[in-house]
């Protein structure tokens, strides 16, 4: 195994058993995360990006959800095989998570200090006094003014941005190697979004941890991630570094995404092109490519067999039969 890889996910499949049938939320996801890098996972609602993240710490809702296959190797340990108690030692310690909605992710009956100290005390033996000092340092680290006074505040006395800072402080309490941010800025307004992302980036550089940022905001990915995995229908469709994804997308879905956002770097004034149609239900996925029904480049093969994720060129993985044609230019991206 490459020593630089801190996390490796191999063929992860997480399904939910509901009354309506089996929801294949994640169906064959593989990726790796390098030390100190920021990996972006992009996809629309229901593409399986959050479930992928939750699977890493096995936080998927029990008993409906289950990881049915795959390996999640963190420092050589397969997280899927760990018992609950062993897994708890990793959660919030070596791998921590930041959630989408800071307004509801803090317990309303405890003070900020209390909750910060909890995140410290769970994993480290420490006196209350030391934990308190640590909590003050953490609040200072995430840029909360007057950290000592704010320790005794309750969550409802904080604004959304401040709460997300507290969530980040809690996540960083034990110096994690990996920080998973599940749409960390979706619930915040734009100016605060930028601040929070800057903060995360700054802290990542300070502590040399790795970040997995899950979002549907391509702008966020463009600015902070070094590599991007694009997901659709529970599978990765394209996985490469940021430049390839933005400038040379090889999967029709990624191409569609790029055509549907405003680009300041292109002079031509064109109408934005949305991707027609809606994503398929994850309960009965089509036999072939999940994107085929919305794809303008569909060929016969697409509807019969799912195209595997293949390395088309150096470190550029695409799950499409026609990726080569896009690369060689025989197929126009404007189609």
């Amino acid at each position, binding site marked *: 195994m490459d020593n630089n890889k801190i996390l490796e996910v191999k063929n992860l499949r997480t399904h939910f058993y509901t009354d309506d049938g089996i929801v294949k939320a994640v169906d064959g996801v593989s990726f790796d995360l390098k030390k100190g890098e920021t990996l972006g996972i992009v996809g629309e609602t229901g593409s399986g990006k959050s479930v992928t993240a939750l699977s890493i710490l096995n936080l998927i809702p029990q008993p409906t959800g289950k990881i049915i296959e795959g390996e999640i190797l963190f420092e050589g340990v397969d997280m899927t095989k760990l018992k609950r108690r062993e897994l708890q030692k990793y959660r919030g310690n070596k791998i*921590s998570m930041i959630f989408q909605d800071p307004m509801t992710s803090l*317990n*309303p009956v405890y003070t900020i200090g209390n909750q910060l100290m909890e995140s410290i005390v*769970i994993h480290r033996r420490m006196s209350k006094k030391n934990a308190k000092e640590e909590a003050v340092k953490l609040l200072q680290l995430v840029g909360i003014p007057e950290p000592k006074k704010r320790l005794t505040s309750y969550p409802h006395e904080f*604004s959304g941005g401040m709460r997300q800072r507290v969530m980040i402080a809690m996540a960083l309490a034990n110096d994690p190697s990996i920080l998973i941010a599940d749409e960390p800025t979706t619930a915040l307004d734009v100016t605060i979004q930028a601040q929070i992302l800057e903060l995360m980036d700054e802290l990542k550089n300070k502590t040399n941890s790795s970040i997995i940022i899950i979002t549907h905001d391509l702008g966020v990915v463009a600015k902070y991630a070094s590599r991007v995995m694009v997901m659709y229908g529970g599978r990765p469709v394209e996985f490469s570094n940021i430049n390839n994804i933005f400038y040379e997308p090889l999967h029709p879905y990624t191409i569609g995404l790029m055509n549907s956002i405003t680009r300041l770097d292109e002079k031509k004034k064109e109408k934005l092109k949305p991707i027609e149609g809606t994503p398929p239900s994850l309960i009965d996925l089509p036999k072939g490519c999940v994107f085929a029904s919305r794809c303008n480049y569909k060929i016969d093969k697409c509807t019969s067999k799912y195209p595997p994720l293949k390395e088309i060129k150096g470190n550029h993985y695409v799950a499409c039969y026609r990726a080569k044609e896009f690369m060689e230019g025989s197929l126009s991206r404007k189609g």
Partner: protein
Amino acid sequence: MYPENREPEAKEEATPELAESKYSRSSLYKDAWRRLRKNKLAMLGFAIIILLILIAIFAPLIAPYNPTERIKADSSLGPSAKHLFGTDILGRDIFTRVIFGSRISIQVGIVAVGISLTIGLFFGALAGYFGNIPDTIIMRLADIFFAFPYILGAIAIMTILGPGLINIFIAIGILGWAYFARLFRGSILSIKNKEYIEAARALGASNFRIITKHIFPNAFAPMIVYGTMNVGTAIIVEAALSFLGLGVQPPTPAWGEMLSESLKYINTAPWMMFFPGFAIVITVLGFVLFGDGLRDAFDPRMK
């Protein structure tokens, strides 16, 4: 751990909201208490409850007579300066007996609800948190209890166990658990799926920690409300059981038993019935008013 070169500079959030909050430390329970104190009816209920508890504790000091002492010459007297609430057929002072009767009612109210609450919390927590098979078993068991009318069930249990104060605790306590369990299960279910529980799990908190530290304090508020209101119900059931002769046995003074004894003299000596009856009404009213106020106080939308 981290370099601390970050100045705690004033961020965009340092708005008036922040400055203001410095002076108003509050939490769910403190907030509730503040709202409760503004509610006059609830405070009236609270005053009645406190007064009643004081009367129960200091009964021997307040009561002018011995509750079982019979004064032959004073049999069946109406209210007067000598006997404030009059006397009963055996010549016992009704004022004294009403005061001592509060002891039974308060005890039954608190102990029986305590038993219901404990059993209900335990099973409600199991059912709500673990779901699935424990949930099905516990909730179907609760359904069986719901099938019995409260009083009828109490009568049945008392008939089996025989009369006596301890048995009243058991009967009322056991009958009430299902209500508490169902309520607690419901509030746990709603809190279990809150993001902060998921966040706690992501922090590596154990099941035990999540239940005791995060779910419990949030789910407990409705239990306090229901528990308080239920004290009133328990007191009425005790009175009913004593009235039927299944509860506290004479000569121990209990309000229900006093009602039962005075039934025959309702036309000739109405005071015998009026005062214990009035005591029951006031007591139950106190708990209901207070419980009602608590419910409003715990509802943040009432702010």
